[in-house]
């Protein structure tokens, strides 16, 4: 968890207060000036956005818009070509140029390095494109069910360790459409407080009651479970029809793993069902890449429903659900994304099949094992070096996601622009994806980063960190491995 020192909290609050005050002042003058001009809004129509709803967008976010939505002109691999942009009116509108700059990519979710053209996957993908074309133009239950889809469902079920699986074309839609199919009114969903927006949407769309437990706090989860089972539904006190507890494998904004063995034991004790969202952890952690169950030694049969996406570690798109045969059968009859949405594009399906084969070693080489070892080594090395430099880094060991705390709103653009100037593409995240005071920069390590790439990244982050003043912890003096010493070790 994050420890926020008082002085930092006070200065951050003061900065935000100043920004809000200036924003309101500008709004006030803008209202006066605009009341003289004829209105451009359609007459008698209520405006699309009322004034205060997009206050944050207009007054705070637009000033630092150039740190977000940066377009690239190459594959999202270890090195990318970031397109240079300019603005003539203080970031209100941003224009593209045709120049690009080559930067080290520390932002894309490319954990195993399948993002760019791969020697095993790409020829097979092109072959399937020529055979099945880019899309089937049909829903899965009508005419969109190809041989590739069936093969991938069996392969995913085998890879994850469950009896059966169902495939969907988008990771976000997987959560939002599967949860309503599993639980409805009269049920209870208990979800972690830091769960992803897709889970929140799915829970809201299902009509079930939702309760939240403190992030990774097993005692609080047990307390919530006991209280809810004892009290029953609100007001009528009827017993709940079923309870589902939703946790994630790796939380993408914290870099932490969930305490899966304890969650499973609590859920078994109180007869609740578990739903594990492995969007970031499948393929990236564990000795054979099978995710958080592999790493923490949990039997996949103990988790009722395992969900994952193919965007991060497999370099494709789409999501899956793996569970028992009855649940998958039920989902195939009722899940709306399976019945109403265009089926997954066949070349993307082939990419996942080839990627899983590489990871399992079934392509005849040991590239998969090498990639898994490489990402583990890279993440641990990078994280320990960052901590030695004095940055406040969150997350557990072995996790390839590393948030670096920034806190102050002025440090967000300064860190991001300084890194870009020194040719490192870093990602900064602020409100509303994180709490208001806890903005951070997030590093995602990939298996395709070599040791030189990481050292260069560390050098640039250190320089940018010095300029922005985000080294909140003291630098370790005795065991400081300076950058020159690292280069000598090479």
């Amino acid at each position, binding site marked *: 968890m994050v420890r926020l020192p008082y002085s930092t909290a006070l200065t951050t609050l003061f900065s935000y207060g100043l920004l809000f005050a200036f924003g309101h002042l500008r709004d006030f003058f803008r209202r006066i000036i605009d009341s003289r001009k004829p209105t451009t809004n359609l007459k*008698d129509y209520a405006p*699309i*956005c009322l004034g205060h709803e*997009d206050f944050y967008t207009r007054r705070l*976010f637009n000033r630092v818009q150039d740190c*977000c939505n940066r*377009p690239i002109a190459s594959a*999202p*691999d270890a090195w*990318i070509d*970031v397109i240079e942009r300019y603005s003539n009116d203080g970031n209100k509108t941003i224009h593209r140029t045709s120049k690009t700059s080559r930067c080290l990519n520390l*932002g*894309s*979710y490319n954990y195993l390095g399948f993002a760019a*053209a791969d020697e095993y996957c790409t020829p097979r993908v*092109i072959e399937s*494109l*020529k*055979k*099945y*074309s*880019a*899309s*089937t*133009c049909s829903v899965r*239950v009508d*005419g*969109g*069910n*190809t*041989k590739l889809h069936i093969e991938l469902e069996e392969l995913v079920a085998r890879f994850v360790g469950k009896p059966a699986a169902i495939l969907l074309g*988008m*990771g*976000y*839609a997987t959560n*939002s*459409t599967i949860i309503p*199919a599993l639980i409805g009114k009269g049920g209870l969903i208990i979800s972690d407080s830091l769960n992803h927006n897709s889970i929140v949407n799915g829970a*809201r*769309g299902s009509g079930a009651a939702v309760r939240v437990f403190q992030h990774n706090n097993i005692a609080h989860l047990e307390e919530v*479970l006991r209280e809810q089972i*004892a009290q029953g539904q609100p007001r009528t006190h009827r017993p*709940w*029809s*079923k*309870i589902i507890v939703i946790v994630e494998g790796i939380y993408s904004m914290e870099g932490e793993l969930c305490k899966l063995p304890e969650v499973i034991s609590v859920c078994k004790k109180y*007869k609740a*069902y578990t739903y594990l969202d492995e969007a970031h952890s499948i393929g990236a952690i564990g000795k054979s890449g099978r995710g958080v169950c592999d790493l923490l030694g949990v039997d996949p049969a103990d988790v009722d*429903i395992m969900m994952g996406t193919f965007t991060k570690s497999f*370099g494709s*798109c789409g999501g899956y659900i793996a569970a028992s045969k*009855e649940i998958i*059968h039920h989902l*195939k009859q009722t899940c*709306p994304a399976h019945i*109403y*949405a*265009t089926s997954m*594009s066949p*070349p993307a399906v082939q990419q996942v099949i080839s990627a899983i084969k590489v990871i399992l070693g079934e392509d005849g080489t040991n590239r998969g094992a090498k990639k898994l070892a490489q990402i583990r080594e890279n993440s641990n090395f990078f994280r320990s070096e960052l901590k030695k430099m004095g940055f406040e880094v969150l997350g557990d060991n072995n996790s390839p996601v590393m948030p670096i705390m920034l806190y102050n709103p002025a440090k967000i653009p300064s860190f991001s622009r300084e890194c870009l100037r020194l040719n490192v593409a870093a990602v900064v995240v602020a409100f509303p994806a994180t709490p208001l005071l806890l903005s951070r920069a997030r590093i995602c390590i990939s298996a395709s980063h070599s040791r030189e790439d990481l050292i260069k990244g560390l050098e640039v982050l250190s320089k940018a960190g010095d300029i922005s003043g985000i080294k909140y912890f003291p630098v370790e003096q005795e065991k400081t491995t300076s950058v020159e010493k690292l280069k000598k070790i090479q």
Partner: protein
Amino acid sequence: MDMAFPVANATAAVLTRVSAAFNAPLARAVVFGVHIDGHLVVEGLLIAVIVFQLTRKSYKPPKKPLTEKEIDELCNEWQPEPLCPPIKEGARIDTPMLESAAGPHTIVDGKEVVNFASANYLGLIGNEKIIDSCVGSLEKYGVGSCGPRGFYGTIDVHLDCEAKIANFLGTPDSILYSYGISTIFSVIPAFCKKGDIIVADEGVHWAVQNGLHLSRSTVVYFKHNDMASLASTLEKLTRGNKRAEKIRRYIVVESIYQNSGQIAPLDEIVRLKEEYRFRVILEESHSFGVLGKSGRGLAEHYGVPIEKIDIITAGMGNALATDGGFCTGSVRVVDHQRLSSSGYVFSASLPPYLASAAVSAVNYLEENPTVLSTLRSNIALMHKELSDTPGLEISSHVLSPIVFLKLKKSTGSPTTDLDLLETITERVLKEDSVFIVTSKKSNLDRCKLPIGIRLFVSAGHTESDIFTLSNSLKRVSASVLSD
């Protein structure tokens, strides 16, 4: 007499003592110039007693929270329902398996069939130019984009695709989504919040219903494609309601309804919208690239200027033979979605090869507008041929590329209807090698329109394909529906 006397004496003594007390100097105090008599003291004491009783809390039985042991017992007794219902006997889940591209002719379960189950309206599946542009994209960018749009997932082909679509339709800007159905259920909650009013057609498909539910606005449905019902609903909502002018109001319709094949009369809707001051959200998944002289959609078909429609969304998985979706409108509409539309911000972006396929598809449509007249003549031929099918009637619009056949006489129960239709489609596939499908419904779908057989006409079909279908369908439905 003897006893009475001392009693009387005692009483008199008490009385004199009491009146003496009342006349005592204390009782005769003068406070603030007010002469206090003794009886005032008694009255004061009574008032004090009354006030004391009123301020005492009323008696409530003490609340005892559950003890740990009781909670344990309750938890042990509670039995949850199973996560899913058990598998029903004879439930059909085997779908036919395709072994080649889903073009007008495809291979299903090992044999070659004529395919009427893919919404491949312009016949672009298998088009050489599109496949070449995809191959180029795959070699340059790989398959996935590995990140959401905000974090280095914006690739230049996305920006090109957005500009191309906006240019094609004549709007200032557009925004790309990575999945067809997620477009509409992210756009509606981005603009409609709690307290807004939405008037929607009752035949909209599940994704629109989900978006309406997630928006938490007040939703009023009107009768399917009935403009009189729409007018009366709008009138009822705005008449006499002064507050209605300050809240946002939307009409949500589809251009070609997936559940029935009807086409929404856009000129009528625009007239009503301007009269009652509503905004229109138009879902154009099945009409983009199909209706209109050059394929620009429903607005071109009716001759309505595109600026009058506030928000247009479409999935690209139909005429453009790729995946994903887009939304277009004024600059304010599109910019607002870049930060507040959850399906855009929190999801990975569209794979780059699909975006370049979309660009090539729009280019193809601009260069070959004759493909639209082929499609239209195919649809007309299909209507002519199927108009006299025994037991089935066409309930879709004459210009719609989705030809919807429903039972002339429904058996009364949806399950038996579905069984009959499935028998027809299975026999048509097995005996005559024509691949057709029924419209399927999830139990989460609230639409009440009847199910039927849904045929997707493509510009790639030849006349002989249509004749094969009509002969086969007439033969099989005569045999299945006559008994």
